[in-house]
């Protein structure tokens, strides 16, 4: 570490600049996280309510809709939700790894990928995975209409039997410092409403008919599931970025500290040398 003082000073300055950026990013991510969490919260009633209605229809009559029935799987669809940008720690890597694990040993014509987010799309494209559809450039606070196109495309491909099951791969938001990569099956909707058994079963009247209501309700429900996963993933992204940038700021602080120490040593060494030179010179004059 015997650098000269000027070099060390320069490095301290550069690390400080980086630290300022990471600190700013951390704070921005924290603010975005709060809003994203709020949106996750606001979006919850919609899907919950839909599940309730579908559950009561499914329970009341023996209505079997193709979207609720399991069929032999020839092809599987994966909706992989990643971020558009990096600098979020292992966020994107985790999702991609989870997706690759889910795909496993399948041959390329046994599955297809719908990529949400630039990072995932680039990864799968570059390596020649079958990407059927993609959507990038989503805002930090995506609206339902932003995701609508890919969500309805995903559901439609299931209906048209392009694939026989559909999974979502995304980072589930646990808390601001913890996100778990999750693979969740959304189609077929096998056990919708199987849970929450209500005390009193209501006998609904359906207009025009139970089948037709279900017919239009189920695709919307699947779309709502994709949308809520996206909101969850966004919250996770901001959480992951906040944590990653917090760590980076801490590391920068540590680095500055050790560099300052080295700087002081170098400075003292220089002073000591100068003194000893002066003393030596004076001694020689005697």
């Amino acid at each position, binding site marked *: 570490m015997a650098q000269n003082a000027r070099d060390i000073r320069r490095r301290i300055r550069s690390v400080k600049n980086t630290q300022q950026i990471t600190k700013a990013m951390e704070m921005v991510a924290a603010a975005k996280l709060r809003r994203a969490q709020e*949106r996750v919260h606001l979006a919850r009633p*919609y899907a919950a*309510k839909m599940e309730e*209605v579908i559950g009561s229809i499914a329970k009341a009559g023996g209505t079997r809709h193709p979207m609720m029935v399991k069929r032999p799987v020839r092809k599987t669809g994966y909706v992989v939700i990643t971020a558009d940008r990096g600098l979020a720690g292992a966020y994107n890597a985790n999702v991609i790894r989870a997706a690759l694990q889910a795909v496993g040993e399948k041959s390329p014509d046994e599955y297809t990928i719908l990529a949400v987010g630039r990072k995932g799309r680039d990864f799968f494209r570059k390596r020649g995975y079958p990407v059927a559809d993609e959507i990038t450039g989503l805002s930090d606070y995506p609206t*339902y209409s932003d995701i609508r196109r890919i969500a309805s495309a995903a559901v439609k491909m299931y209906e048209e039997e392009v694939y026989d099951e559909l999974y979502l791969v995304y980072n589930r938001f646990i808390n601001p410092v913890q996100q778990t990569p999750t693979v969740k099956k959304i189609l077929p909707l096998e056990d919708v409403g199987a849970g929450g058994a209500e005390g009193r079963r209501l006998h609904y009247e359906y207009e*025009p008919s139970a089948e037709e209501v279900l017919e239009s309700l189920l695709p919307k429900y699947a779309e*709502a599931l994709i949308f809520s996963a996206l909101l969850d993933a966004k919250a996770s992204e901001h959480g992951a970025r906040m944590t990653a940038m917090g760590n980076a700021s801490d590391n920068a602080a540590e680095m500055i500290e050790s560099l300052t120490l080295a700087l002081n040593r170098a400075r003292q060494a220089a002073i000591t040398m100068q003194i000893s030179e002066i003393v030596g010179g004076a001694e020689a004059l005697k």
Partner: protein
Amino acid sequence: MSTIALDIVTPERTVYSRSVEMVIARGAEGDLGILPGHMPLVTTLPIGLVHIKEEGRWSLVAISGGFLEVRPDRVTILAEAAELPAEIDVSRAQRAKERAERRLAEKGRADIDYVRAELALKRALNRLKAVEESKGAMR
């Protein structure tokens, strides 16, 4: 006066959640007037307006298609989008209307575009109508 709880929920937020006296909506098979104690019902809702009577006053909400669930004590509307007249951006709806009309005027393109343009036109007209009607009601 007895009331019934009304929730209007979209994927993004809960637009309306209050106790009301009456709800009028256009269902799949005609207009429905819902008072407290209505029998359980589920119906699809086309793009349209929902009229709400609360404390003797009428107001309305523009709905871009969805579902209506009725229970004796609770009405829930699940819609892809829903706006109170005050939230509607008139110039944006106007632009959407013109854009959709332009698309519909261009013949001979893939028919999927047609369906979408038609729906967009319906939504835009519905929003404009909501704003107009609510202005009329205030006078």
